[in-house]
């Protein structure tokens, strides 16, 4: 029996050590990703330390629980431990209360996939990754080894924190918390404010790092006219901005990424060969 202070669930003897184990296992969620169950097996792998404790004297119950958690599941990985926390709490309820409808466990998982993935993608792929990579590039460009270090730190501090606190929060009061956030509208506001940082960073990166210039020059009645000098007088970095907005427009029109890349290769190559770019 573990010390009382180490216990997270008294009735099922789930300890802090089990939670740490689930936390680390959650990093392998995509380890066996496939098109049928997606992250199902990885989810089961992470849940196993808790399931084994909850159903330690109930083999059939354990099997049923394993089948529940190997079911298809797909979510941005960082917020997934939050869902694990919620489902651990629900499994405990299911074990305690014979009348508990176990299908609600997977209903909750399915219900959370969409919204949490949406929030997770915005933050982890849209915001944290951009900022981390942007700062990383700004150092790496000069050959400074701080680049990769900053990149990993800036991304993984929120990554680790979201997993650890998400798991604990989900277990303690997950379902309540979700209701509160949704009804107060705080989550939308927070996401919008994160978007402000992301949007400003993208604007900044286009101006700093997209380096499209034209070498075109004409000689008209003896004086040389360099196109790029005129462009710079209108707006510095005009070509990078126009190129990005044009491609963005194509994306908005749902033109496929592969087609756009192919288009860039053709147009860019021709412009480069004839000396426009």
């Amino acid at each position, binding site marked *: 029996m573990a010390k009382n202070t180490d216990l997270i669930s008294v009735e099922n003897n789930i300890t802090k050590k089990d939670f740490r184990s689930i936390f680390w296992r959650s990093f392998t969620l995509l*380890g*066996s990703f*496939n098109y049928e169950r997606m992250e199902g097996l990885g989810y089961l792998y992470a849940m196993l330390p808790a399931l084994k404790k909850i159903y330690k004297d109930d083999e059939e119950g354990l099997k049923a629980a394993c089948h529940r958690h190997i079911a298809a599941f797909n979510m941005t990985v960082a917020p997934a431990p939050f869902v694990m926390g919620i489902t651990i709490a629900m499994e405990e309820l299911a074990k305690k209360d014979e009348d508990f409808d176990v299908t609600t466990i997977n209903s909750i998982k399915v219900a959370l996939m969409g919204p949490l993935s949406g929030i997770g993608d915005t933050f982890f792929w849209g915001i944290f990754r951009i900022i981390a990579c942007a700062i990383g590039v700004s150092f790496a460009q000069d050959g400074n080894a701080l680049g990769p270090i900053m990149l990993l730190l800036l991304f993984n501090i929120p990554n680790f924190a979201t997993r650890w606190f998400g798991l604990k929060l989900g277990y303690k009061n997950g379902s309540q918390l979700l209701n509160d956030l949704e009804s107060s509208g705080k989550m939308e506001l927070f996401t919008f404010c994160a978007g402000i940082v992301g*949007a400003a960073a993208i604007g900044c*990166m286009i101006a700093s790092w997209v380096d499209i210039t034209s070498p075109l020059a004409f000689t008209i009645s003896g004086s040389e006219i360099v196109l790029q000098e005129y462009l710079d007088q209108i707006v510095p970095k005009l070509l990078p901005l126009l190129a990005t907005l044009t491609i963005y427009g194509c994306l908005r029109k749902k033109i496929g990424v592969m087609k756009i890349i192919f288009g860039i290769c053709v147009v860019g190559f021709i412009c480069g060969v004839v000396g426009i770019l």
Partner: protein
Amino acid sequence: MTLIQAVLIGCVAALTQLEGGWLGEAKFREPVITGFLVGMILGDVEKGLMIGAALQMMWMGATGIGPTAQLDIGTGGTIGAAVAIMTGKGAEAAIVFALPVAVIMQFLNTLLLTAFSGLMVVADRKIDEGNLKGAISIHYLCGFFTFLLYFGLTFIVMYFGNDAINSIVNGLPEWANNGLQAIASILPAMGFALLMNIIMERDLIPFFVIGFVIAAYTELTMVAVTAIAVAIAWVVFLLRSGQQKSPAAVQQNVVDEWED
């Protein structure tokens, strides 16, 4: 390229893939990281970092979600950086290899994930037999196959493709080089357009303009602009959380504030 170097570069490529599956998307796949690692292996860290930065900008928008999951930037970045350092050429040599590799590897990945689907039925059966260890071992097995595919292919390309790569890169005529440089200069715009596609909404346009103008007209660095943006976001959060209503009311407030 020595045997050891080829083995280590193969390991870097495998790391970029296992990062997603086994290290919680800790971002080892980003070209800045792979450029640094490949640079260390090939003895030119500075060049590795610079090539990494160039490829990073090109793929800034390549995420694991939606349509952009069609690019394997991990293996593409690793091989691209290795080629650029090996041949002594710049970023344009890197993209000649990085781009096709990123497309091909993503296609192979699709096949791998399809194969893993078949293993799930086996895991189901193991659970029924009460053999939980057996079910979990399939999780590990998938990781092993992933490692094998990425390590194996990268190693073969690096170790046996050495001469072919050199003659392709060094045999490029001047005009083709110009064309490739132009492509290399436009591709970063693609990356940022993809990013805009993820997070842009109408109310964020002013902040996009602020970021662009500061960087285009001043010498402020990326770190400074990010800090300014965080400060603005903070103020907006404080202003608006005071007057929290329904999400619809929040939207309305945005419009009001811009009209003032």
